[in-house]
């Protein structure tokens, strides 16, 4: 009788173990974003303009270089930081000056931002300055969009596509 009770209690304890696993492995449900929301992703991978323009070396400067290293033109590597702003419905949602990557600051400026917004109509304005010598913004794009529920709208930037891409 005692043995039977022991086996029964073992069954109950094993049962409690698998109920815990079975439940917590799928529940409670987590809401990442509501059904009536949408997402705008702002992303950038872009190298700013060179901070200093390339210049021709004089004959004296060339002579000072080792014969196998002689070039006529040198281009300083450092890139301009990139200033990026995003306004949604007139409200400034993102503003940052992105430092170029790399030890010599000669790499891309990068960012990735995710904004959760209500589904529906929105006015977007994205603007960017990739040259410290230029005042204001040298790239800008404005568009009214209608986002369906759970839609992901991507704002990317590519110079080969003439600037901002709204997708």
């Amino acid at each position, binding site marked *: 009788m005692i043995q039977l009770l*022991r086996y029964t*209690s*073992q069954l109950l*304890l*094993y*049962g409690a*173990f*698998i109920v*815990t*696993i*079975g439940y*917590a*492995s*799928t*529940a*409670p*449900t*987590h*809401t*990442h*974003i*509501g*059904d009536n*929301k*949408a*997402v705008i*992703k702002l*992303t950038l*991978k872009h190298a700013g303009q060179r901070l200093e323009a390339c210049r021709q070396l004089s004959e004296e400067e060339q002579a000072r270089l080792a014969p196998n290293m002689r070039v006529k033109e040198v281009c300083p590597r450092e890139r301009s930081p990139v200033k990026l702003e995003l306004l949604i419905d007139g409200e400034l949602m993102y503003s940052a000056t992105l430092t170029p*990557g*790399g030890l010599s600051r000669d*790499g*891309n400026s*990068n*960012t*990735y931002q*995710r904004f959760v917004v209500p589904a529906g109509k929105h006015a977007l304005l994205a603007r960017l300055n990739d040259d410290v010598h230029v005042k204001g913004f040298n790239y800008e794009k404005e568009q009214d969009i209608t986002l369906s529920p*759970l*839609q*992901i709208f*991507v704002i*990317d930037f590519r110079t080969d596509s003439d600037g901002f891409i709204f*997708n």
Partner: protein
Amino acid sequence: MLNWLRLSGRYLFEHLEAVFNVSFGDRYNPFYYLGSLAFFFFWIVAVSGLYLYAFFETSMLGAYSSIEYLTVDQWYLGGVFRSLHRYASDAMVITMGLHMLRELVMDRYRGVRWFSWFTGIPLIWLVYASGIGGYWLVWDQMAQYIAVMTSEWLDWLPIINEPMARNFINQASLSDRFFSLLAFLHIGIPLMLLLVMWIHIQRLSNPRTNPPRVLMVGSILAMLVLSLIKPAVSQAPANLDLSVSTIDIDWFYLFVYPLMEKTSAGTLWILASAISLFLALLPWMPPLLRKPAVVVNLDNCNGCERCYEDCPYSAITMEPRSDGLDFEKQAMVQDSMCISCGLCVGACPTATPFRRKTDLIPGIELPDHPLKALREAIIEQTATLEGDQRVLLMGCDYGVNLDKVALPGVVAIKLPCVAALPPSFLDFVISRKHADGVLLTGCHAGDCHERFGIEWLEQRLAGKRDPMLRKRVPRERIVTFWAGEEGGRKLLAEVSRFQQDLAVLGPYTPPQSDVRRRASGTEESA
């Protein structure tokens, strides 16, 4: 504060374990095998994973459909293996977490035990990296959620220049090669996990990586039942053009993501790093646990290797003889690995209390628990006992608090571990009539604080392990009772029952051969 938390946790564990002791018995209580159960669940995950891998397609479209094929079309095998894979990995998180918590509250993480504790911290990270990586492979909505959140979390690190999250901005940004990388990681990280698991047990002698067979059978049956009742299924396929809304996440592994949503990636990094660092440094936080290590007395060490075989932490090595005595080897103690349990002292054949002509100095000894003092304590304390139900109660630091045991006809002596008592002392107590019986008590049978104290002692008493209790000692006068710290009442009842048995047995009468030997002076006398 830390001490208070530890004591409270210990109180909770002991009461919970008491329930399991009633059901499973204290030799098969799952709480005493949490580490080995975690190992066992790892093997279930590994074996089931091998089967799943044979059918898995490493491509964006193939990943989801191949898992669906296993789950739906091949539910009887592939589906069951998938469920086992998932639920056993959840069980591994539970047993690993409880194992860590239990070692903490039972004070088994400091001193020499720091190594296992310390190497357990990267194990947590690796278990989570393995488990979370597995969820990516399914490429359903949960995988999409994890992919985006994990990359956003990693992107917080300043060393990452180009955001990883760019790889998941839309369907077009992802390629099949990503799934090859994921599959590679999901095999590589668990292999690394296995390596660290192996390192984790390196400082243990005879590590218990397998739980008792009954627990293995019970656990796998439980996992099978769960797999059949509630098979693991995928959620809707991932679509990077649409955001995930509500998902049924596995809270054992993925609780960090909702936490990150509530706070930030930076907060999660700080939390995870701070908790890991705190846990890693715990063994060196006050109060420090430093007991003097055992010392080898070479004059009395004959290099028999029993201490070497019985040490639970491999703190003793056998080296070539250095003192010119005619023995091949000698014991050497690595102080940094000795937990001062005294199991080696109990194993030493030279630790006999019958010696009187030479001083009682065994081949190996605990400096703060010399055997000579123990013999004197036995003689002095038992001298106060009267009648024919005199009981010498011997216990350890982790069993019932013997200071609170006050019974007529009973004296109590505490040792670091009861297995630190050489069996010859039991012979000494009974044959010299210092007491009518000896009751040995300590931790729960399956949960010796010093790992093998109970097992070794029982084998020595049963004549299955050196040094064995001499056959002339009547076994009915030696009783073991394993009840842990909270077994005070049961111990009192056991002592009372033992005293009744002793009354029936009457006073001890030594065998005639022993009487003749003592009379002729061939045995040293106390």
